[in-house]
């Protein structure tokens, strides 16, 4: 199968996760991505944690950079003339240069549009390239809280246990990555339109993207309800502690509840005729959860999940990355590909969550070395 974007050429200037993730998405679907780096390399190369070397010693390859840049080519682009040369042949230019610096670098919307009329110019910034906050900075934690979801987490068991703690961000770079996905989608939408309208400027704000994926809170506001992390827990189910870990349980449909009752062994409390009504179950959620938690606390996660899924009860183990790497499902799907990853050696790299025509995608290689810098000298300093 030909990768879907194999005819596409992308140049990316990425100092942050959002722009790099956009390029990664396009690259995993076949686009040829060139990472245009400043002297010394993109700051992403210096983000911890660093991967241990094959011999177990501390290494110098950033896990984040290696993941984001796998499959890309890299070039240190120190002058405007070289960048201009690269952009002349590119279909898409993804850039996270702050707005205030763009004009000086000749990277502002008007300059790019004037020089490359067929280029899709994608700007990816924490708060976008237009609007009163377009100059504002924002790391992932800031983006998640500006977009709303940050204030609404944690929920369920965690907020029951720690109701007075500060709200909690989603792990890793979730907020920035939302900007990256929106940027990839924006690039492809603009490319679709290119035969009719030529190149154009795509303005992506990570805040907007976080708000979009959190749209239900706005929907509930319109329904007259203001969500709060303490109240938005599922009425029953959610994170359930077991003897050897945690599982997630969520029954939305009657048949799933019926399956759960069977899984629990048809206990007397669950056979209360009043609980046949989903509204009543919702009202008595805390009581139901007490029973479920007591039952699960003395059982193993895999036993519950396996029996429950057979009965059509939606259940899942909270899996660690190591468990996912070894999981038969992910192995079967070809989610990971062995690739050379700097001084960490050959490792399983997650490729893509997409299959096209029943086949997984593949990466052309691991993360690119910085060509003007010896591998072991990086990052450690």
């Amino acid at each position: 199968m030909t990768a879907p974007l194999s005819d596409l050429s992308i140049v990316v200037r990425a100092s942050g996760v959002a722009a790099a993730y956009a390029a990664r998405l396009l690259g995993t679907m076949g686009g040829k991505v060139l990472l245009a780096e400043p002297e010394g390399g993109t700051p992403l190369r210096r983000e911890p944690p660093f991967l241990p070397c094959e011999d177990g010693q501390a290494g110098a390859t950033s896990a984040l950079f290696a993941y984001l840049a796998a499959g890309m080519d890299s070039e240190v682009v120190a002058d405007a003339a070289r960048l201009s040369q690269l952009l002349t042949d590119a279909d898409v230019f993804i850039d996270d240069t702050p707005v205030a610096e763009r004009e000086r670098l000749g990277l502002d919307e008007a300059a790019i549009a004037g020089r490359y009329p067929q280029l899709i110019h994608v700007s990816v910034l924490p708060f976008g390239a237009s609007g009163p906050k377009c100059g504002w900075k924002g790391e992932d934690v800031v983006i998640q809280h500006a977009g709303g979801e940050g204030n609404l987490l944690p929920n369920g068991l965690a907020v029951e246990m720690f109701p007075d703690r500060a709200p909690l961000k989603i792990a890793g770079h979730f907020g920035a990555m939302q900007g990256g996905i929106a940027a990839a989608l924006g690039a492809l939408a603009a490319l679709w339109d290119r035969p009719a309208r030529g190149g154009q400027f795509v303005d992506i704000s990570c805040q907007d993207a976080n708000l979009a994926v959190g749209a239900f809170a706005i929907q509930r506001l319109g329904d007259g309800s203001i969500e709060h992390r303490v109240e938005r827990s599922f009425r029953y189910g959610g994170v359930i502690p077991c003897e050897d870990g945690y599982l997630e349980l969520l029954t939305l449909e009657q048949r799933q509840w019926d399956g759960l009752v069977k899984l629990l062994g048809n206990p007397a409390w669950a056979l209360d005729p009043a609980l046949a009504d989903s509204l009543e179950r919702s009202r008595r959620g805390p009581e139901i959860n007490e029973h479920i938690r007591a039952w699960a606390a003395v059982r193993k996660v895999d036993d519950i999940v396996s029996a429950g899924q057979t009965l059509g009860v939606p259940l899942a183990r909270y899996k660690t990355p190591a468990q996912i790497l070894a999981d038969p499902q992910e192995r079967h799907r070809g989610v990971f590909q062995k690739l050379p990853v700097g001084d960490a050696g050959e490792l399983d790299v997650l490729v893509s969550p997409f299959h096209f025509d029943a086949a997984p995608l593949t990466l052309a290689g691991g993360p690119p070395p910085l060509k003007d810098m010896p591998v072991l000298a990086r990052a450690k300093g």
Partner: protein
Amino acid sequence: MAKPLAGIRIADFTVHNAGPFCTNLLSQLGAEVIKIESAMRPDAFRKPHPVYGRMGPATFDQVASTKLSVRINLKKSDGIALAKRIVGVSDIAAESFRPGVMDRLGLGYEALKSVKDDIVMLSVSSSGQSGPDSHFAGYAPLFGAWGGLGELTGYEDGPPVEIRHVMDHTVGMHAATAVMAALHRRRATGKGSHVDVAAREVAAALVGDMMLLAAAGGSPARRGNAHPRMAPHGVYPAQGEDRWLALAVTSDAEWSALADLMGRSELASDARFSKEADRQENRFAIDAIVSEWTAGKDAGEAAAQLQQAGIGAHASWTTPEIASDDHLRMRRAIVEVAEPDGKLRAAVGVPMRLSKGSEIGIDRGTPKLGEHEDHVYGELLGMGRDERRALEDAEVIY
């Protein structure tokens, strides 16, 4: 001037949130999306949703906005035939049933290809169309649990955290990107394709760096709001009940600026904090200092001051604050949509601004069940009134 995806038509069989969010994004970008449902199995938003605490139907559903609605009873063979006629005039067929359901209905990829050779079919599911877990039922929090995102989210000393609708919707946004890629290939090669998006793999992709760390023998773990390099970094108390300020100091220069802003310039040269590695080592002490300062400040004003000083910060916003924000409204990330009774309410736009073409975003609110059958059955499929009535009487259009 048209929106960028004008001319693209989608036969939309998706249910719940992830799939519908995907097709909603594409509809906001100009695709004509025909939502296929029935009175027997109406979309979840048309019914009460007590587990989420909604005791009646929704009057507005974000992911159904801008779509067209038709009724088809897929339990009838004539219903399947009618669905295929819609696919025959579409570019994309999107579905999010459990793997195998579309095949059993006679609407699998091969069947749809025989109707429309270059169709792009999108299947969104919890675990993908293949593999030992492919039959698993699942919703957003389960995707996060399977994919590692839930396990890694949480306080260091607490349990994992369930990731809610944002998980569904990030699956949907990924799916929209994959579908657009398939359309590009169709334009280049004339060939359609079957796009298979596994929600748990999307969750794993969002922590792909931690997967890599584990593959190298490391042990990724929950870190709360902490960052492995930056300190201070997190969510700090602000003035007022349940008010918080998110901030991150990315460099020594920013730390120096924060020290000045707090009126504690001496902290910039304090050996415990002056260098990034030292601040990381003493992050609990630094959090206490910053918290003492933020606790007396209005979150919004403090964020503006911090930004002025070159430090990334924002108030931890509640939904009403977001809905009324000038910046988001100017960018059309927040828009007004009319309810059936004409009342306006806030909704969320498509997260991008394009420099050319007409304004993208939501055109209409939530369609009534079967609201657009005159257009779809009458104009697109050329069905006469008698044919439609016969199918209604036979509970095919139902």
